[in-house]
């Protein structure tokens, strides 16, 4: 055995590259098993309310202020940036349609998800990472409780069920922010602003954003919990898990936004072919 250890100490760059590729595949497989296990536990046994409610509060209620503020400012910034160009073309009254469609279909869901990944995802990874390092996760298992069921399921449900509400909150605040800046500061006619908004932004657009947010919430919860569960020892390991949780979640949000956006548009065009040109 000592010979094997000695050989492994003298790996060539090719070996190291192979080892990294192997690690990557193993990590993806590990993530898949972890996600499968979390989803399976959700079907088998609902966590207790005593376990779920604190998580729901942390994920949902505590995120409201930051999501509301971000949404408001994004709507306001969109109005400020778009106004000049639209006014030059004589289309200032159409500002509402552009701001609101951007908000409800893209910016609202993505920003709410990004805020959730930053505020809640990294916090979950750090908390679970600390629990891993201090053997609290082992203690749960030793007490006959499945750690994934006890720790991951309530967090998954919190993210999955509450992010659509946070998205709607971001949408609403962004719409209000954009409208206030456009009509009160830029002087756009309020009636025309809302009239064009109603013409171009429908319930399906809001639904498109909300639909995506479910996937964002699921990805944030699974990635963050996975990083926390597999945190390395020490303060550096926990910090790294928190950082990775945010970075990986953000990449997943953008990737899901792109793929679900394409899929949604295709489905929409299939069901209502005459509206394809509007998309």
């Amino acid at each position, binding site marked *: *055995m*000592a010979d*094997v*250890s000695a050989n*492994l100490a003298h790996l060539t760059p090719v070996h190291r590259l192979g080892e990294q590729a192997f690690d990557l595949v193993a990590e993806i497989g590990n993530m898949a098993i972890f996600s499968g296990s979390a989803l399976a536990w959700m079907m088998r046994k609902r966590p207790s309310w005593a376990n779920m409610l*604190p998580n729901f509060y942390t994920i949902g209620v505590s995120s409201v202020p930051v999501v509301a503020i971000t949404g408001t400012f994004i709507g306001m910034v969109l109005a400020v940036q778009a106004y000049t160009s639209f006014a030059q073309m004589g289309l200032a009254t159409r500002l509402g349609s552009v701001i609101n469609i951007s908000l409800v279909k893209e910016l609202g869901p993505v920003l709410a998800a990004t805020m959730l990944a930053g505020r809640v995802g990294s916090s979950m990874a750090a908390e679970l990472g*600390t*629990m891993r390092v*201090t*053997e*609290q996760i*082992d*203690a*749960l*298992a*030793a*007490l*006959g*409780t*499945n750690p994934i069921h*006890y720790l991951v399921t309530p967090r998954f449900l919190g993210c999955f069920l509450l992010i659509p509400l946070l998205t709607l909150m971001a949408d609403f605040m962004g719409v209000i922010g954009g409208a206030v800046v456009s009509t009160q500061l830029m002087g756009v006619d309020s009636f025309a602003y809302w009239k064009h908004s109603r013409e171009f932004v429908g319930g399906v657009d809001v639904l498109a954003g909300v639909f995506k947010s479910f996937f964002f919430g699921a990805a944030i919860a699974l990635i963050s919990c996975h990083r926390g569960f597999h945190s390395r020892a020490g303060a550096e390991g926990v910090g790294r898990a928190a950082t990775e949780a945010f970075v990986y979640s953000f990449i997943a949000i953008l990737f899901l936004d792109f793929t679900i956006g394409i899929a949604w548009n295709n489905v929409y065009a299939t069901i209502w072919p005459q509206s394809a040109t509007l998309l």
Partner: protein
Amino acid sequence: MTRVEAPARGPDESVVEMIDLSMRFRQHLVLRDIDLRIKRGETLAIIGESGCGKTVMLKLMIALLKPSQGVVKFDGQDLSRLNEKDLSQTRLRFGFLFQMAALFDSLTIFDNVAFGPREHKLFPTEDLPRLVHERLTEVGLPEGLESKKPAELSGGQRKRVGLARALALNPEVMLYDEPTTGLDPIMSDVINELILQTQRTKKTTGVVVTHDMKTVLKVADRVVMLYPIARLKPGEPQILYDGSPEGLEKAADPRVRQFVQGEAGERLRELAQGRGEL
């Protein structure tokens, strides 16, 4: 969930068995070809240098880790063959005192001690306060701690709460991972007394991983000494000693005597030369 009761067996029967057991973390082999049987009712101490695999062995006994090779049996059942539900029920027959107690930070002391019985519905909810009070009293903790969080307690108090939490499940086998580490000599002796008290009053089987020779001499019926694989000669077994605590001082192997006497010997020079690092 109803708890599985232990089948009636003789005192000489092995309650935990490790057969041809090896454990590897990536390229690092920690345990090799371990054969160990723990009899019902005995208290076994596992000693050895840091990093030689003592805690790993403890976690393998309760299936918190899966062995790379070999079998771990509890009451004759191969733990690797149990499904999730049966494994969970089997774990309820163990108590585990973790090195740093591993209390749940977000829960109060009451909720920590009541965690196992409440999660598995082993007691009616109205009986939980009495159970928690009894367990905390058993480990010498005063009233009024129940509403505190673990961060508000001293190291010795946390250890005792950890022990109370483990005992709340009325385990058949108690696993202690370095129970006296980080405690002053008096508190260490208090923990040793509690281990003895648990063994006497609850008739539990005990496995104590420790570096503390006072603990070994006070609580153990039998001692096993593990040695780091990296420092073994080719073909040597990893268990250097398996016998009574009294026999340690007179062990034939000088490495056992060196460990017991806590002498550095040539170790500092070896470490400086990069030899013997784990």
